[in-house]
């Protein structure tokens, strides 16, 4: 366990409730995320974890509650606000651009930083080309960091699952996010790949100082990496606190072991 001092609160969700028709997905969820921490959301399947991320970056709009990000309080996030303000994410089911190469996928992650206009890009001379090369340098740094040099020009549709997960992480990193939402980055991986991914998550947090919200099923990983953990179960918030505390929580143990009442 690493001892660290947590920074200011960057994100606070309060009283979030979300439903689709008659189905309640999230029920009065409140927690905060502090600068520089690794914050995990855990819970059984269908607990509403991915929906919570979708609320944070504006894909779903909750019926109740507020989201405070960097001092601004909103009833709901909008997708482009989230992106423009440095929230990036990866997905549970990989959402890469299948027809494009690794390089292009990660370059696309930098779209908000590109300033040249369409005409300059059409002529591909001067500013547009200079910019393209600059961003390529940044992207190559990410490629080196994630150790995916060899698949730079491979269409991502042809890559194995573990590699696709890495490319997706690369695309999120390309935006140089302040808050990174990772939705089960290690699902379906073998031990080796998991270890790699853990290392990347820690390095991103350490080296770039990126705040991370992580959804993960592997308890070992969660307990090792996280500073604090939120536990959800069927849309309800069961517990919130440091890993050791959460591990000892009776409600959490019941939910995971399925104690009958």
């Amino acid at each position, binding site marked *: 366990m690493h001892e660290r001092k947590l920074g200011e609160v960057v994100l606070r969700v309060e009283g979030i409730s979300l439903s*689709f028709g008659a189905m309640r997905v999230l029920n009065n969820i409140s927690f905060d995320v502090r600068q520089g921490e690794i914050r995990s959301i855990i819970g059984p399947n269908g607990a509403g974890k*991915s929906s919570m991320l*979708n609320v944070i970056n504006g*894909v779903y709009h909750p019926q109740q509650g507020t989201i405070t990000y960097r001092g601004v309080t909103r009833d709901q996030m909008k997708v482009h606000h989230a992106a423009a303000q440095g929230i990036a994410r990866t*997905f*549970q*089911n990989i*959402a890469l651009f299948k027809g494009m190469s690794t390089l292009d996928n990660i370059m696309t992650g930098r779209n908000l930083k590109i300033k040249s206009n369409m005409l300059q890009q059409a002529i591909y001379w001067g500013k547009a080309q200079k910019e393209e090369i600059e961003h390529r340098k940044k992207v190559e740094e990410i490629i080196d960091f994630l150790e995916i040099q060899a698949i730079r020009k491979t269409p991502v549709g042809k890559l194995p699952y573990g590699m696709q997960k890495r490319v997706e992480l690369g695309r999120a990193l390309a935006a140089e996010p302040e808050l990174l939402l990772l939705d089960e980055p290690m699902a379906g991986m073998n031990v080796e790949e998991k270890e790699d991914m853990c290392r990347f998550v820690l390095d991103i947090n350490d080296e770039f100082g990126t705040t991370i919200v992580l959804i993960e099923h592997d308890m070992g990983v969660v307990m090792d990496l996280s500073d604090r953990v939120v536990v959800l179960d069927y849309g309800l918030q069961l517990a919130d606190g440091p890993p050791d505390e959460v591990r000892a929580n009776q409600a959490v143990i019941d939910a995971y072991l399925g104690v009958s009442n």
Partner: protein
Amino acid sequence: MRIEKEVIYIFLATLFLMVAIPWSVGQLSKDIFFEWPFFFEVAIGGLLAGVMYSLVALGFVLIFKASGVFNFAQGAMVLFSALTLVGLNERGLPMWLAIIVTLAVMLLLAIVIERVVLRSLVNQEHIILFMATIGITYFLDGFGQTLWGSEVKILDLGIPNSPGLYFDGRILINDFDLVAALIAGILVISLALFFQYTRIGRALRAVADDHQAALSVGIPLKHIWVIVWAVAGIVALVAGIMWGSKLGVQFSLALIALKALPVLILGGFTSVPGAIVGGLIIGAGEKLAEVFVAPLIGGGIEDWFAYMLALAFLVFRPQGLFGEKIIERV
């Protein structure tokens, strides 16, 4: 079937506009003749024509529902079946026998299409399959005319084709349109029963809902495809007979597909009731616009009006009136 509130509101708004616009144009412009019996005559004529559109759209829906293929060749199948029927009849086969033989031909066509085209393109993207059906369209158009010639042929089934007076002689309706609407109605009801109560029908619905799941409980996809294409072929034959008796059997029958497309997007690609309601709205809307609005902008709007009407609906319901709403998940 649960009908959403939104659909009912849109439907009521449409109904209101269909009455209000002709009425107010009639009040405002002296070039437009507006009287209630005349309005109803136009509206009923439009609804009956709409049933004929529905008939063609129905073939699209069947195939799209069961296989996800946007079958552009439905129009070509209408032409091909009508050409075959008339061609056989002209060569001396009595009408009843010609109809049976044509049905057999349509079944054969379904088998060939499944064997040659669908089986080779299974799991390809939708646009590729769509293009393949355009290929089938060209092939069938050419093949039908190579076999049976391209001159206009008359198809006479003895359906009366004269205007009749109804409602105390105040409203004029073409008897043929009435008969056609009746036949189309019977076809739609029998298809609904077929889907609801037969084993094959249930299998078809299962496939429509989820290909993988249907396969996993042992429903063979290729048989299902042959069946839907054959049923779509029968629907095409009925449409071909009705349209052919009305307009004569000729190449322009293939273009009826273009009339059915707006019906399809208005009603929703996946909905049989959608094809019916869509057809009625398009039919009535088009006739009313043609009579009460078009003269003000120079006429000839039948080429595009149905499309614009459907487009207007799509802005409110991007999946069509009865289409399945697509919820995107990440």
